[in-house]
């Protein structure tokens, strides 16, 4: 079997900010609410505590994000997904939850550079100035759903795989040299 390929196979654009498609990145949608062993299960999976409302807890290449009152997104290395899913199944056994691999359903981008925020300001309706460090924002970029958060001095942005080239086009267009805000 061949290696898994991300939607755009690492496409890059260097404008006034650097846009790069990264991945494949492991992602698990975890739906659960108020379970006794949920904290422990998430800690074991990605090494973080459960995030509070709108927040994302980052632990190097792993993270857990609050997506809704009963939904979390686990971010982890692609190769660890299967093993993490079976660990979750073990620790949440007998309780009502749903954990599914969504790694391949997504495309992940990095937006880096001192003016990275300008790239997003032109595309999303979210208040970028109101985005605190450690917050994840679920919103849209132009016409499609995205989520993003600040990490390592830039932004990590997630969208659906099928619209990866549209989002790459958006980010590149927005990062055109000379179009800084």
């Amino acid at each position, binding site marked *: *079997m061949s290696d898994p390929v991300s*939607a755009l196979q690492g496409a890059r654009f260097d404008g006034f900010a650097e846009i790069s498609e990264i991945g494949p990145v492991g992602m698990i949608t975890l739906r659960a609410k108020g379970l006794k062993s949920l904290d422990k299960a998430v800690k074991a999976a990605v090494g973080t505590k459960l995030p509070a409302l709108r927040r994302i807890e980052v632990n190097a290449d792993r993270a857990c994000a609050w997506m809704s009152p009963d939904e979390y997104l686990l971010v982890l290395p692609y190769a660890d997904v299967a093993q993490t899913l079976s660990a979750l199944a073990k620790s949440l056994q007998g309780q*009502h939850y*749903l954990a*599914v691999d*969504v790694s391949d359903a997504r495309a992940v981008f990095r937006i880096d550079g001192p003016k990275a925020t300008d790239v997003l300001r032109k595309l999303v309706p979210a208040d970028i100035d109101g985005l605190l460090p450690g917050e994840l924002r679920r919103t849209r970029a132009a016409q499609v759903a995205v989520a993003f958060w600040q990490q390592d001095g830039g932004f990590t942005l997630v969208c659906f795989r099928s619209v990866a*080239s*549209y989002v790459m086009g958006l980010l590149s267009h927005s990062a055109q040299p000379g179009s800084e805000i």
Partner: protein
Amino acid sequence: MPQGAPIALRNKMWLDYQNDVKVSDVQLAAREGFQSVEHTKRYTTLGMATDQGKLSNINGLAVLAEALGEEIPQVGTTTFRPPYMPVTLGTLAGEARGEIFQPLRRTPMHESHEKSGAYFEPVGLWRRPYCFPRAGETHEQAVHREVLNTRSALGLLDASTLGKIIVKGPDAGKFLDMMYTGVMSTLPVGKCRYGLMCNEQGFLSDDGVVARIDEDTWLCHTTSGGADRIHAWMEDWLQCEWWDWQVYTANVTEQYAQVAVVGPNARKLLQVLGGMDVSKEALPFMQWADGSLAGFPVRAYRISFSGELSYEIAVPASHGATFWAACMEAGKALGAMPYGTEALHVMRAEKGFIMIGDETDGTVIPQDLGWIGRSQRRKPTFLVNAGRKEVTLPTRTAGNWWGSKPLTDRSFRTAPMWWPMV
């Protein structure tokens, strides 16, 4: 306006192009006594459009000044509002331009289809191959070839766009019995069942094959255009109506690339790829199995929308392109050809299978499609039962539909094709 233009023409001298204010309107305002510029503005709506008078106000003030026999500065100006500076059309257009004017959804195999010269058609925001014309072939000829080849040898369809929704929880079976006209709670683990969905009024809204994954997990396939809508529809019922039911859903449509392997040589192709038992005994019709094919991790569904021997193979999307290429390569010796959505529809119609979106248009109920027996047999928990009992529904379409059914084809199922006459 030409020199000496008659009054009829001068009455049509446009001043404010956004609000359709004419020179004669401003002159009338002056005659009516609206001498203040602010009053003239409100009487005529001059300069009150989104340009805030940037295109018309100076001319308008001049016309008013002339009508009042004054100089422009004496007439004064209205309150100056944004936009203060000219903006380019590019600023207004933003990112809505060229390639990114509209988000197009692409399957993992999209690039391969482009290289094969596929003629695409829009399905929602997806672009799906309608057919794969060869040099010198019309689209119609290509469709005929694809249908005949699939019926006689082997056809491959990119079915990745089909919606896939995981429904899990202690109440998931009960929930799906409400969603579908058929019963899903009794579906044994490992098996598949075709299901129809209706809205509250009883009109058909979506269809697809449901697979029971384990004791409390089902996978619901939806139409390509329906995935987001049906997922939202399920969440709507779960969050607003049955919030105390223990059911979680997840839309995993894009997690998997799906390839329909169809035709008399379908099983042979999977056997050439190798890795799992796909024999009639191990994987009977309407069952699914996890395994591997040519080293790819797959879930194989033995389902058919063409009436032929057929499998749908789901692989993780990040392996979709290479798996498709592996099928095409291994299929060469078996006469494999890709086929598009038109061949899919033709084959489906030839066998009399229901086609949501083609023979339903939001005004069709299951009874119209000969599905009445199946939906009436079920227990009384289906969410549109109330609507179904409305006297209008069973009688409403009586005179508006006709059906046709070839007499010669014995493989034809019970339901004829129905077409709206309205």
